């Protein structure tokens, strides 16, 4: 098991994916231009997709690219272009006073939580494609069937709750963004 898990090809794939993810993530923070940051984000998302494929979660990899790279970052770019990318933000000014302290505390808590999680759980890294129940994940097209079964049986409640949450978010956004045109232009010549 160990011998197959650490075969040269899978190590190479892992290193490539890790490099893509890390370089992209650092790029998101370091780039001065918001569009370049968005591009770095796409790079990270691709790296994650590669990591998914290496774990034989092909469907997740495809969805990662379709949903995140294909739709969400496109929306980011849409917003960036509309708001104008030439405006440079001055990072020394704090719009919310004290946010840096809270951000620091948040980071410490998250990292501590991650470390405890890692320390207390058993490691599945190296053993390729293990589902949460410990059974081996089926590969090829069986993968999608397994995922569908899990989403619509074991995790049905979470799945439906997520769907409801997204709908609520959309309705809320429309409510907030939509103004009555008659109200803000009494002259009628809007």
């Amino acid at each position, binding site marked *: 098991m160990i011998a197959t898990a650490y075969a040269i090809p899978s190590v190479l794939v892992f290193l490539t994916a890790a490099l893509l993810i890390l370089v992209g993530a650092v790029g998101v923070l370091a780039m001065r231009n918001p569009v370049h940051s968005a591009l770095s984000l796409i790079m990270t998302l691709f790296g994650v997709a590669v990591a998914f494929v290496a774990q034989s979660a092909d469907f997740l990899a495809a969805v990662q690219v*379709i949903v995140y*790279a294909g739709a969400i970052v*496109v*929306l980011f770019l849409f917003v960036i*272009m509309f708001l104008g*990318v030439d405006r440079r933000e001055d990072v020394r000014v704090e719009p919310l006073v004290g946010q840096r302290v809270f951000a620091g505390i948040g980071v410490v808590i998250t990292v501590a939580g991650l470390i405890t999680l890692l320390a207390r759980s058993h490691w599945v890294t190296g053993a390729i494609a293990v589902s949460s129940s410990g059974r081996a994940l089926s590969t*090829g*097209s069986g993968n*999608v069937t397994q995922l569908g079964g899990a989403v619509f049986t074991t995790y049905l409640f979470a799945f439906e709750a997520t769907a409801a949450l997204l709908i609520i978010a959309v309705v809320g956004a429309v409510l907030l963004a939509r103004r009555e045109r008659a109200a803000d232009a009494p002259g*009628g010549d809007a």
Partner: protein
Amino acid sequence: MTTWLATVDPLFAHGVTAAVLIIVLVKVVVGFAALMGSVTLMIWFERKAISDMQSRIGPQRWGPFGILQTLADGIKLFFKEDLVPAEADRFTFKLAPYLVLVPALITFAIVPIGGTVDIAGHPVLLQVANPPIGILLMLAMSGISVYGVILAGWSSGSKYPLMSAVRASAQMISYEAALGMTIVTIVLATGSLSTHDIVAAQAHGVWHWNLIRLGVVPFVVFLIAITAELNRPPFDVVEAETELVGGFHTEYSSLRFALFFLAEFMNTITMSAIIVTLFLGGPAGWVPNIAHVRWVFPILWFLAKTVGFAFAYVWFRAALPRFRYDQLMDLGWKRLIPLSLGWMLIVAGFLIRASWGFLMAAMVILAWTVLTRAFTLGQSREEGRDALLPTVGERPLPGRVLRAWTDREKD
């Protein structure tokens, strides 16, 4: 590792040997060459067909019937000066053409162009790759090719390309939803994502083609949505010459412009092939019982169907006027997405049991009525200049527009 590879491609049944590797390499090279060759022909074909429809002669100088015109154009573009505007974002400007070209190439890899052929004792699928995610790869790649258009428009540092980029991003997201929904319908009926299985499920005659088996609605929705994804007329608001100069590639010249052009026509061919694969059974068709050349006929069937759709795209361009931008959004969000979603639910119901199917159909009709009511309510609440612009399908007659204006003057 070997076992699951064999489930997607019988070529890997006995492990990855040198012979298998060579076969795969040959498939890649042949696929690439065939696509490049057909792009050259496609550009010539489009120009020739359009000029025939417009009573012009079209390209005629180079080669018989001007068939080498594309080659001459390519050479010309290759030797032109390569300009990068001073205002451009240099890295992104240079990256963008490849973001359009590479997805166009990758998508073709999943198209099955024939049956299975025996080469040196190895069963070889006549498609470059048969990944387990299959048709999702096409969706992913069309999602990536948007970036080419958006970034090209933005990085040019110019006004009209930027507008084109904003239009492209909104249009692509709108039509991708309808596209995905129709693909879900097909995947539900097939029970597999892989293009090879989708084609195999349609192999037993015309009545098994998805075009007929799923009702014609998904096919129509898919055809419209894919035309919008391609930015081809009548959905070419992204490169509307009359409004945006040249659209996202206004500032491009030389080889980089050629890459955009190449990718656009390559996408046209690939998407024709994808439609054939999903709805018309791909290489399915009548095969005469002649020894040794039986494998040729599926390829011929595939080519014939694909050329049919390629011609349809040229015909669209010659015959249909461009959509206005708000009409485009209306058609995508208010018509195609509800229609494809409702049809998917009905198909899913019928796949379980006929009674469920009829129940679903009743529910969809109910929802449709409510939605239509909501649209009319929303429309009547609209005031201001937008109210003068009618929705899809209506033509703003000059008299009506004038009356609307004069009525407003009175108020």
